[in-house]
C-alpha cells in the first residue's frame, strides 16, 4: 500500500504542477495584449504608471498624517505658511505651478523634475526620521511613519526611473532623461539648506512636494497613455 502511495502522489503532484504552470502561463498571456489592439503595447506602461501613482498617493497620505500630527503636538500658534515658504530647500527646483504650465512643459522635463524632487528629499527625510526617533514624545506610530516615508521616497524614485526607462524603450521620450537625479548634482546646489529647517517646516515642505510629485505623475501618465484610466 505504501509502495503504491508514492508513485501515485508523485503523479498527482506532477498533474497539479502542470495545471498551475498552464494557469500561470495563461495568466501571463492574458495580461499582455490579448487582442491586437492599437496601443495595447502601452498597457504595461500604463500599469507601471498606475503603480507609481498609487505609491506617490500613499506617500502623500503619510506625509499628510504626519503633518497634522505635528500640528497637534506642537500647536503652532500661528499659521506657519507665511514663514515657511522661504525655507523649503526644494524651492530652487523650478516646477510648473499650474495646470497649463504642467501641460505645456516637455515630457522629459517633467520626468526630470519629478526625479529631482525625489532625490532632493532622500537625505532630509532620513535625518528627519532620525530626529523623530530620538524624541520621546512621539509615539511609535509616528516614528514608523517617518521611516516609511523615507523608504517610500527611495522606492518611488526607483519606480519613476523604471517608468522613464520604459518610456525611453518605447520611444516615447528621448534619452535625455538619464540618471540626472543623482544626489551629487543636487547637493552642490542645495548646500544642504534643509539641515537648518525645523521638523515642522520639513514636514510642511514635504507634504507640498509630495502633492506636486503626485500631480506631475498623473499628468504625465494622462499625456502619454491617456486611454488607460484617466
Amino acid at each position, binding site marked *: 500500500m505504501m509502495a503504491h502511495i508514492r508513485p501515485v502522489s508523485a503523479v498527482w503532484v506532477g498533474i497539479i504542477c502542470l495545471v498551475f504552470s498552464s494557469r500561470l502561463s495563461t495568466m501571463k498571456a492574458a495580461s499582455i495584449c490579448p487582442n491586437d489592439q492599437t496601443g495595447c503595447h502601452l498597457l504595461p506602461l500604463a500599469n507601471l504608471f498606475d503603480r507609481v501613482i498609487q505609491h506617490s498617493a500613499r506617500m502623500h497620505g503619510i506625509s499628510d498624517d504626519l503633518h497634522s500630527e505635528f500640528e*497637534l503636538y506642537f500647536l503652532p500658534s500661528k499659521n506657519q505658511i507665511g514663514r515657511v515658504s522661504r525655507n523649503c530647500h526644494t524651492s530652487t527646483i523650478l516646477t510648473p505651478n499650474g495646470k*497649463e504650465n504642467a501641460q505645456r512643459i516637455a515630457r522629459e522635463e517633467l520626468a526630470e523634475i519629478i526625479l529631482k524632487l525625489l532625490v532632493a528629499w532622500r537625505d532630509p527625510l532620513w535625518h528627519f526620521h532620525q530626529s523623530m526617533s530620538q524624541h520621546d514624545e512621539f509615539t511609535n506610530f509616528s516614528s514608523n511613519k517617518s521611516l516609511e516615508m523615507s523608504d517610500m521616497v527611495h522606492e518611488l524614485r526607483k519606480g519613476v526611473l523604471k517608468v522613464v526607462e520604459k518610456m525611453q524603450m518605447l520611444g516615447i521620450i528621448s534619452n535625455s532623461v538619464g540618471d540626472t537625479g543623482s544626489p551629487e548634482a543636487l547637493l552642490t546646489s542645495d548646500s544642504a539648506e534643509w539641515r537648518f529647517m525645523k521638523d515642522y517646516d520639513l514636514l510642511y515642505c514635504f507634504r507640498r512636494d509630495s502633492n506636486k510629485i503626485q500631480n506631475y505623475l498623473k*499628468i504625465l*501618465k494622462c499625456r502619454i497613455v491617456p486611454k488607460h484610466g484617466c
Partner: protein
Amino acid sequence: MAVSLSYDLLLLLVISSLDWSSTPGSAFLTDHNRMTSSGRSEKKQQKRERATPVEPHFTECMSRDLETFRCWWSPGTFHNLSSPEELRVFYLKRNSPSSEWKECPEYSHLNRECFFDANHTSIWIPYCLQLRGQNNITYFNEDDCFSVENIVRPDPPVSLNWTLLIVSPSGLSYDVMVSWEPPPSADVSTGWMRIEYEIQYRERNATTWEALETQPHTQQTIYGLQAGTEYEVHIRTKMKGFPKFGDFSDSIFVKVTEIPLRESAVLLTLVLTFGVAGILILIMLIVVSHQQRLMMILLPPVPAPKIKGIDSELLKKGKLEELDFILNGGGLGGLPTYISDYYQDEPWVEFIEVDEEDADCGEKEDQKSSDTQRLLGLPQRSVGCFSADSHPDDDSGRASCYDTDLSEQDTHLLAASLLPGQPEDEEAFLHPDEKAPASETNKSPLIQTESEGKPTWINTDLYAQVSNVMPSGGVVLSPGQQLRIQENTEKESQKKGTLGEDTSKLNKPQFQLLVVDPDGSGYTSEITARQISTPPSSLVPGEGYQTIYPQPMETKPAAPSEPNQSPYILPDSPQTRLFAPVADYTVVQELDTHQSLLLNLPTQQPPPPCLPQHPLKAPVAIGYVTPDLLGNLSS
C-alpha cells in the same frame, strides 16, 4: 515683593499668550483647517466672540478646480465702513522673497468676492491676503495665508441615476447601482484633479444619513435597500489626499415597489433544503458509525480457497519456491502441525480431510459426501461423516469425505497440494468429464491395489479440488487423487480446443503431473504433486512442478534429490500415498446437478514406462513449457 513680581510676570505671560493666539477677525482658514486642528479653531472662535468689534476679515477662500479660486470677505462690525468698495483686497504670492502686495484681479463687490483667474493662480505657492481700508488701514491676519491646493472643494457630480441590480428572492430587499458623471469643472481627464466621491442615502423621512466609503469611481452599489421604501441619495466630492468636501449634489430618489411575496415557495424551499441537509448529515453519521459493518455488507471479502498449511501471502509475494517446497510435501511432516493453526477458524476452507474421529462433520464444509463412495461403490468406511445416500453433496468443490484409514498426513498432503490460487477461474477451467465417475470406478481397484490398503477414497475423487489455476489457464488440482491422474488420457496435441490432461502412470502411484492445456493456449502448466511428499527439509526452488504428459508416463520426481517423493508414487513404495498417480490437473468436464465438479477421470492406461529422464529436469518456468519441451514431454 518677589512674589508679586513673579505674579505679574505670570500675568503678563498669560495675557501675551492670549493676545498672541487670538486675533479678532481671525482667518477663515481656522474654520476650514483639517479636523485635527478643530480644537484650536474652537478656541479661536471663542476668543473671537469675546472680542466685540469685528474687523473686516475674510470669511472663506475656495477653489473649485485647482485652477482658480475666489475669496469672500466681510466688513465686520466697524461702523466707519460705509460702502463696500472701500475695502480692497491685496494679496501676496510668497514665491520669492521680493514679492509685493497686489490688488485683487477681479472684484465682485456684490458678493464681496475676489476672484483669481487661472493667470493669477499658482498652485503650491502660499498666498496671503489682506484687506485694506480707506486710510491704508490694513487688516491683515497672518492666518490668512494658504496654498491653493488646500482650499479645494470640488463641485458635486452631475447626472445621477440609478439602476436596479438585483432583488432578493424573498422580494424584501434589493440592491441598487448608482452612477454619475464627474463634475464638469474638475479636470479629471488630464489627471489634474483626482476626485473621490461619497454617497449618502437615507429613507425619505429619516433624519440621519448613511454614508458609504469614499471611492474614486463614478458608480457605486448600495446594498440592502428595503422594498417599498423610498430612499434619497446624494453625493459629494473631495480631492484625494485632502480633507475638504464639496457641496452635496441634488438628491435622487430610489424606490422599488414590493414584489408580491412568494412566501410559501420560499418557505418550502427553505424547509426542503434544511430537511435534505439534515437527512444527509444523518446518513453520513450512520455511515461513519457503522463503517465496518457497511463495508462488510457492501464489499464482502472474497472467499478464497485455502490450502491447509499454505499461507496465501506466499502466493501473493510470488514465492513459489517456498510454495513448491511446501506443496512438495516439504511440510509433510510439518504440515500437519500448522494446518490446523492456519485454518482452524475458517470453516469454509475446503480441506480434503479424513474425519474418522470427527463427529461434527456437519459443521465444517468439508463434509464427507457419500457421492463418491456411492458412485464408486466403495465400502464406506468412515463412520461419522458419511451420511446416508440421501445426503447428496450439493456443494461444488466440496472435498469428498475420505475414509478413516487415510492418515492424517495424507490428508494434509492432499490439502497441501491445494494452492490458494485463483478460485474464480476454477470452474472455467475444470471440465469434469461425465464419464469420470465411471472411470473412477474402474480405477478404484487400481488405487486400492496400489495403496497399502489405503482407503479407496482416492479413487473416489470424482470431485477434484482445484488447488491452483496457473496463469496460462491451466488448472492445478490437488494431487492426492489418483483418479484425476488417470483421467488424463487426452494428449496435448489432441486437445487444442479443450482442456487436456495428462496423466502419468495411472497404476503406479507415481509422482505424476497433470498437464492441463486450457483452450488453445498451447502451454502447459505444471505442478508438482510431489511437493506434498517432499520432506520439509529439502527445498526445491523453482522445481515445484513437473509436467504430466499426455501419455501415461513415468513421472520423475521433480526434485532429483528426492526420488521417493511423490506421494502418489510407486504403488509398491511404502510411502505410497493415497495420492498415487494423482493428477495435479484434472479436466473438469461439467457440473452435475448437485453442483459438484465432474472431472475428467484419467483413463485407464497401462502403466507407463518409466521415463528415462525427465526432459524437464531443468527447472522450467512455472506454468510454461516451451513447445520443444512439450514435444519432449509428449514423446
